[in-house]
C-alpha cells in the first residue's frame, strides 16, 4: 500500500468505510442468534456487543497516536522482528480472508433461497469474485467512495423498516431485562461476529488526510453501527415477538414484509436485490485489506497479481460449506478464537508501543 498509489481518504470516507466493512450480511441473521439466547432483551445484548470494537479503538488508539504514518503491520515488525511480526501479520490477514469467506458463503445461501434458486453456488461466487477483484484494482479511494454511497442505502433500508412499528406491539419487547442478565451477556458474545472487522481501521488509518480525526471517526462509526444493529434487532422483535424470531434463518427479511408500497406486491425482492450490493461492498473492503496485508508480507509480488493469487481461496472455500446450517455452526465455533486473537494482537502491540514510548521520552528528557 503506497501512498503515492492511492489518494488519501477524507475523514468522512474513513467513517463510511468502517461502517461499510462491518455492516454486511450478518445483520440479516443477527436477530436469530441473539433472540434465541436473550429473548425479548436481544436488542440490549446487541447494544452491549459494541464494547468489543470500542475496546479495540481505545487500546489501539495508542498505536495510532504514536505511529500516525505506519500501519499496525509495520509496528508489529518493528516490535517483534521480521519473523514473528510477519507471522502475526499473516494470522491477521487470514482472519480477513475468513471474513470474506463468511460473507460470500452467507451471500450464497441467502441469494439461493430468496433471489436466484436456479443458480449454483459456484456461479454466484464467481460473479461476486469478478466484481470484487475489479473494484479492488481501482484502489482504496474507489472502495471508500463505494462505501459512502452504500451507507446511504443501508440507512434508507434500515429506516424503511420503521413501517413495521405500525404492525408490531410494544408488548413484544416487555418485560425489559426480563430474561436475566446472564442470558443477556451470553447473547452479547454471540453478537461479536457481526461487530468484527473494526480491525480494518489499523490497516487503513495511515491513508487518512487528517490523522487527528481518525479516532474520533472510528468512535462515531461505532456509534452509528451500534444504532443500526440495535434498531434492526429491536424492530424485528417488536414486529415478530421473541417466540417467532428464532424460527426464521434471516428474520430481518420478514420485517420487510411490513413495508407496503402501492403497486409492489412483495417488497422483499427489492430489499434482497439492494442488499446484494451491500454484501458486495463488504466483501470488497475485506478482500482489499487482506490482499494489502498479503502484499505487505510478500513485498516482491505485484499488488495486482495478489488479487488473482488469493482469489482461488475465496472461490473454493465458501463452496466447502454444504449448507447454511453447517456454515453457521463453523463460524460460531471459530469466531470466538478470531476475536481472542484480535484482542491479543492489538493489545500486545499497544502495550509494546506504550512501553517504547515511555523509554523514548525518558531518554530524550
Amino acid at each position: 500500500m503506497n501512498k503515492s498509489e492511492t489518494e488519501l481518504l477524507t475523514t468522512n470516507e474513513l467513517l463510511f468505510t468502517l461502517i461499510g466493512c462491518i455492516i454486511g450480511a450478518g445483520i440479516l441473521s443477527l436477530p436469530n442468534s441473539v433472540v434465541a439466547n436473550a429473548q425479548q432483551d436481544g436488542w440490549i445484548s446487541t447494544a452491549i456487543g459494541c464494547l468489543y470494537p470500542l475496546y479495540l479503538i481505545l487500546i489501539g488508539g495508542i498505536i495510532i497516536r504514536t505511529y500516525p504514518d505506519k500501519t499496525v503491520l509495520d509496528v508489529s515488525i518493528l516490535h517483534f522482528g521480521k519473523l514473528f511480526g510477519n507471522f502475526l501479520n499473516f494470522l491477521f490477514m487470514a482472519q480477513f480472508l475468513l471474513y470474506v469467506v463468511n460473507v460470500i458463503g452467507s451471500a450464497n445461501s441467502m441469494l439461493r433461497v430468496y433471489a436466484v434458486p436456479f443458480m449454483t453456488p459456484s456461479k454466484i461466487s464467481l460473479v461476486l469474485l469478478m466484481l470484487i477483484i475489479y473494484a479492488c484494482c481501482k484502489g482504496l479511494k474507489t472502495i471508500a467512495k463505494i462505501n459512502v454511497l452504500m451507507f446511504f442505502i443501508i440507512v434508507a433500508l434500515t429506516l424503511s423498516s420503521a413501517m413495521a412499528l405500525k404492525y408490531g406491539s410494544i408488548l413484544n419487547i416487555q418485560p425489559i431485562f426480563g430474561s436475566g442478565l446472564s442470558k443477556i451477556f451470553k447473547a452479547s458474545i454471540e453478537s461479536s461476529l457481526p461487530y468484527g472487522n473494526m480491525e480494518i481501521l489499523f490497516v487503513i488509518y495511515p491513508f487518512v488526510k487528517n490523522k487527528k480525526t481518525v479516532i474520533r471517526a472510528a468512535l462515531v462509526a461505532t456509534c452509528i453501527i451500534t444504532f443500526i444493529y440495535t434498531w434492526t434487532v429491536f424492530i424485528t422483535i417488536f414486529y415478530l415477538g421473541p417466540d417467532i424470531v428464532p424460527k426464521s434463518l434471516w428474520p430481518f427479511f420478514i420485517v420487510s414484509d411490513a413495508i407496503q408500497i402501492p403497486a409492489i406486491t412483495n417488497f422483499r425482492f427489492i430489499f434482497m436485490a439492494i442488499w446484494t450490493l451491500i454484501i458486495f461492498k463488504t466483501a470488497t473492503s475485506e478482500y482489499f485489506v487482506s490482499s494489502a496485508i498479503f502484499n505487505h508480507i510478500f513485498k516482491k509480488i505485484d499488488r495486482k497479481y495478489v488479487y488473482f493469487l488469493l482469489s482461488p481461496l475465496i472461490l473454493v472455500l465458501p463452496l466447502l460449506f454444504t449448507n447454511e446450517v453447517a456454515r453457521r455452526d463453523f463460524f460460531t465455533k471459530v469466531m470466538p478464537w478470531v476475536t481472542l486473537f484480535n484482542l491479543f494482537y492489538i493489545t500486545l502491540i499497544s502495550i509494546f508501543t506504550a512501553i517504547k514510548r515511555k523509554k523514548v521520552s525518558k531518554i530524550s528528557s
Partner: protein
Amino acid sequence: MLKKNRILFIIVLCILMYILLQSGTKFVPIEKLDIPSGIAIDIVKDKKGNKNYLVTLDAYTFNNKDKSNDILIEGAGITIADTREQRQLESNHKFIIGLEKVMLLGEDVAKNGIENALDILFENPFMHDLAWLVICKDKAVDIMRVKVSDYPTSSDYIKGMIDNCKEQSFFSDNYKITDAYVRVDAEGRNLVLPYIEIKDDKIQITGVVLFKKDTMVKKLDLDETKYMNFLRENDVSGILTLQEGFDKQISMSGKVKRKVHCYKNDDNQYVFDLDLEYKGDIVSNSLYEDILKKPDVIHNFEESMAKYTEEKCEAFIDKMQNEYEIDCLELGRVAAATYGRGTGVDWNEVVSKSKINIKVKVIVDKFGRGQYTVKSK
C-alpha cells in the same frame, strides 16, 4: 491499440459470463405458468380410509385473449408437499407461487391443526405473506368452485371480502399469513380467522374461528363475533345500536380504542382492566328526540349505551371464561409482558380463572347533518 484490446476483452468476458450463467437455467413465458389466485387445503379420506391432504390451486388461464379464465388443479398426498406430485400429473404448466391472494383452509384442516400448513408456507421463500387466511365451512374446494360473475376466480372475490370486512362489525385486518405466524406459537396469543360459507348461493362471512395454539376450537356466530372483536381488537370500526321496540332505536357508527392493564390482587389472582373508548357519530336516531337540544341528553345516552355494551361484553366474557376456556382477547400477552415470559404458564387457563373488569366509555363525536325525527313543536 491497448484500449481496443481491452474493449474486446470486456466484450468477450461478458459473452462468456452470459453463456455461463445462462446454462442450466430455463426461462418460461408467463402464459406457460400456473399462477394461482388462491390455494385451498382440505383433508380427505382415500379408499383405504387414511387421511390425506387435498390441495387445490385456482390458476388463471390465458388462452382466451379477451377474458382470463380459471382452472382448478387438484392433488392429494400424505403431506402437503406430496400433493405437488399429483398436481403436476394433471397440469400442463409449471407452477409458481407468490401471487396468491387467499389461502382457503377447510374446517377439517383447522380442526386437525394448521401447523403443517403454516410450516410449508413459512419455509417457502417466495410465499406472499400478505395473502389472507380464511377458514371455510366443510370443504374449501367447494367454495373455490363457486363462480362469481365478472370475477375470473372466486378467490379474487373472497380477497375483496376480507379486504373490506374491517369496515363493519369491528373486524380487524389481522387475518394475513404473517399474522398467523406471529400468533400461533407466541406466548399468550391466540389466532382468530374469518369463517366463510356458502349461504343462499352466495359466499358470506358468517363469523370467526377461535384457535387454541394451531387447532380450531370454536366457531362464533356473528353476534358473538361482533363483541369478541369489540373486546379484542384496537382501532376497529363498527355500529352499536340501542333499541326500545322496533321503531325506537339509536345507532352509532364509530371506532373503538382498547387499553389493557394487568395486575395481581391480594389473592394472587390476575386482574385485567379493559378500558374501551368508543368514539363515533350518530347515524340514525328515533329514540332520543331532544339530543340536538340538550347536552345532558347526550350524556344520558352515552351512559346508557356504555352500560348496554358493557352488559353484552360481560356476557361474552362469561361465556369465554366458562364455556370456551380460551384467551381469545390476548390478555395473556399483556400479563406475560408484565410478569415475565417463558415461565411455563398456560395463559388460556389463567385468563379463564382471572378477573376481567370492563369499562366502556362512549363518546359522541358528530351528529351528521342533523336529525329528521326531531319534533319541531
